[in-house]
């Protein structure tokens, strides 16, 4: 009786561990921006790249409802690819704020001179800590922000493409 019980118990235990692990295999626990909260702190102060004044993001929202925050760097190759799409967004009269991530300011200026400036203001994040306060994990990243409610409506991790900018424009038209 006791022996049987032990065997049955160990079989059940083994099976349950097997199924738990099997189920664990299916779901990949990769980081995704979907399971983060959508609040954003707009009262972070940044230095500007060109005029060396300090601005908070709330000031730069300029009392408009929506704005786009784009984190970029001159050393980041996907940012270079993304840049032409940002230039397209500029034509749509969007308040686009650039955050220059861990970059050399001269390189950043050369980059802008070469590729054009789609941003209304460029802010500098020298050591990357401010991007972390915004909730970024790397470059490039783009956030569509509702500045009245301090909410991130949409988070794009990685470079923008045609499909994504169409999505942004359609959200803004609503």
């Amino acid at each position: 009786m006791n022996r049987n019980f032990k065997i049955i118990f160990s079989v059940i235990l083994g099976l349950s561990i097997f199924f738990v692990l099997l189920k664990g295999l299916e779901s990949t626990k990769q980081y995704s921006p979907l399971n983060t909260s959508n609040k954003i702190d707009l009262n972070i102060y940044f230095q500007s790249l060109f005029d060396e004044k300090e601005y908070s993001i709330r000031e730069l929202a300029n009392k408009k409802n929506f704005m786009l925050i784009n984190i970029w760097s001159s050393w980041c190759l996907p940012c270079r690819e993304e840049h032409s799409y940002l230039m397209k967004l500029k034509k749509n009269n969007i308040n686009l704020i650039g955050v220059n991530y861990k970059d050399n300011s001269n390189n950043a200026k050369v980059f802008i001179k070469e590729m054009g400036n789609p941003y209304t203001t460029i802010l500098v994040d020298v050591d990357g800590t401010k991007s972390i306060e915004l909730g970024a994990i790397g470059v490039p990243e783009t956030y569509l922000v509702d500045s009245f409610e301090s909410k991130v409506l949409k988070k794009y991790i990685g470079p923008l493409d045609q499909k994504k900018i169409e999505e942004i424009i359609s959200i803004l038209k609503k």
Partner: protein
Amino acid sequence: MNKLKYFTVILILFLNFFGASYSQSLDQVHKISKNLRCLICQGQSVYDSNSDFAISMKLLIKKKINEGRTEKEIYEFLKNRYGEWVVYDPEINKNTILLWLIPLILFVFGGLLIVRKVSIK
């Protein structure tokens, strides 16, 4: 000569004080960053990683400590930005209840086994 003595003593005290407070805040940074998951690395903590993300994260933790934030506040701050996944400390909810309960069940079961063995003898 006397002045020089005073100066040396003060200098040594000064250096000691700064050295101590510096290493203390560094210890705290290590402690906190060991409990944080590096989101862009596979299976590494922020402490272990040397990625750009982890380096900035450690700097930010140091800044927050110097601002006088407590360890708990820093975890809350990061959870607000990166979600529950950033800390190595799963909350109790319906997805993690098994994780929390299994050790307890095993403990009770083991205890019962021991009690039975002892009482049989």
